[in-house]
């Protein structure tokens, strides 16, 4: 009678050349080109808008952002700061993963997930505070198109985070490739959002 417990061998050890990191890099490039084209078209429309006098009459402005619309800068700046936190947490996950520390890797990824939810919440708050309808005009339609695309990128990053979190909880905290890839994508969308933030929310 065999009384010994059978310990199964570990899964096939495939040491690959970081395909997930490379794929994440390509995905970042795709996201950058997507948002780049949208911002280019946005700025093209903006540059072709007629000039109007500012409310105090001191300068001429592009008649692009309608006068009655106020952008809630607290929420937008909060989003920008939250992206910084997201990147820091994602890098912490990489740091923990390198040390084969599953608890801290999972914790870091969990915090990243929370910050991503916060980002979505902030974007929804911006929509509610601005209170504009997509059909109201050109600016509104393009505003929703750009910000909704940014939201979609954040949701994709959330999926990435959930995948990394699942792998980490499931016993693969040492899978550095995936965690690094996740961090790279977080950095990429943070930079992309910085461009959106500057063009849409700051420059208006």
């Amino acid at each position, binding site marked *: 009678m065999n009384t010994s417990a059978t310990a*199964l*061998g*570990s*899964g*096939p050890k*495939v*040491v*690959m*050349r*970081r395909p997930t*990191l*490379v794929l994440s*890099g*390509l995905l*970042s*490039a795709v996201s*950058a*080109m997507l*948002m*780049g*084209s949208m*911002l*280019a*078209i946005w*700025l*093209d429309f*903006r*540059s072709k808008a007629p000039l109007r006098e500012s409310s105090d009459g001191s300068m001429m402005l592009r008649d692009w952002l309608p006068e009655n619309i106020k952008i809630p800068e607290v929420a937008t700046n909060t989003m920008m700061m939250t992206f910084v936190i997201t990147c820091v947490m994602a890098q912490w996950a990489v740091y923990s993963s390198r040390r084969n520390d599953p608890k801290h890797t999972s914790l870091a990824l969990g915090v990243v997930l929370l910050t991503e939810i916060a980002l979505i919440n902030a974007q929804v708050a911006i929509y509610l505070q601005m209170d504009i309808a997509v059909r109201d005009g050109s600016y509104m339609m393009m505003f929703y198109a750009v910000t909704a695309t940014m939201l979609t990128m954040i949701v994709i990053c959330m*999926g990435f985070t959930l*995948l990394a979190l*699942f*792998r980490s909880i*499931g016993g*693969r905290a040492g899978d550095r490739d995936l965690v690094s890839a996740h961090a790279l994508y977080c950095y*990429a969308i943070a*930079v992309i959002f910085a*461009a959106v933030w500057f063009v849409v929310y700051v420059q208006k």
Partner: protein
Amino acid sequence: MFSTGFKYFFGVTVLSVVALVMSVALFKNLALIGVAITFLIAAGALLTGLAIITSDGTTRDANVQTSDMTTQSLWPLVTGIGTVFLALGLVTSSIVFFGGVVVLLAALSEWMIQAWSERASSDASHNAEARKRLLNPIEFPVLAALGLGVVIFAFSRIMLTVDKSTGAVLFIVVGTLVLVAGTLFAIKPNMKRSVGAAICALGAIGIIAGGVASAVSGEREELVLAAEEGHFTHKECGPEESKYFDKLKEETLSLRSAVSATIIYQDGELIANIQGLNKPQKSITVPRSNATNIIFRNATEGEFRLVVDLGKPKTEDKDSHHDVDCTQLIETGGEQSLTLNIPKSSSADNHYKLFIAGAEDKQIEVVVP
């Protein structure tokens, strides 16, 4: 020193910079061209850095396995279907969109767990077991609910298409077939699995095919007419018998708890019996915005219905009719319940009352504090 990949990405980046400089020098309107090339430079720089970090993915270690064989999977197809529904839902209806979201999330979860389980250990059967242990508790109930839902929906479509007598016969036939199949399974426990599966599959396919055919041909005429004319969607609270509202009237009550008052129409007089009060009343008090049950009992010769006047609705139309609710027309000795849920207090503008249809002078006041 510099890898081929690095050289390529670096070349693209540098040429993009040259293009940008040229554009700045030559073109006035730089918005479209300049911004697009700038993002291309950023993407090129990112991939250049990646090429340096990964050294183009070159390794000299001959023991390193370059890639892994992937097993067949249905989930990319299902994910594709979910994505299509999601995209279609953006231009059609929100039901399609949310359906797509559900399918997409389910497929992505299955895909993710399948990929995880394949690397769980070196034993394929253990990996399959791990996957089953994680997903079967969710998959089986969901699939069963979906399958059952489809069968029930299909059967409902058939019932709505065929006429009533055919529907009754169909019920008997299907029920008999199910009984026969169940008996067969019970008395032949050693029957081949494939035979049982085939019988069940045939039955399901038959019902679903029938459901699809019925859905395509549409509901039977009388139901279409009833929907168009709203036969059963509103109450007709006049003194005359309504063809549809008063059909199959209920004249007895089984549940008598939580009754606020019993309104009796006796000898041409309308009175209210309230629990705790000895004498009949001519007004009742009901709480605001609370469902309150009252029983109407017809103790007078003839068929009568109780109507409650809920005041004028909040519209600018001065000629709008009052909101009313009522019981069905009930015979002598019969009773029905009526539930009142009045959101606003009584006032000069909101005057509520109970009365007999056709005998509006027989009233009981309804007070809502």
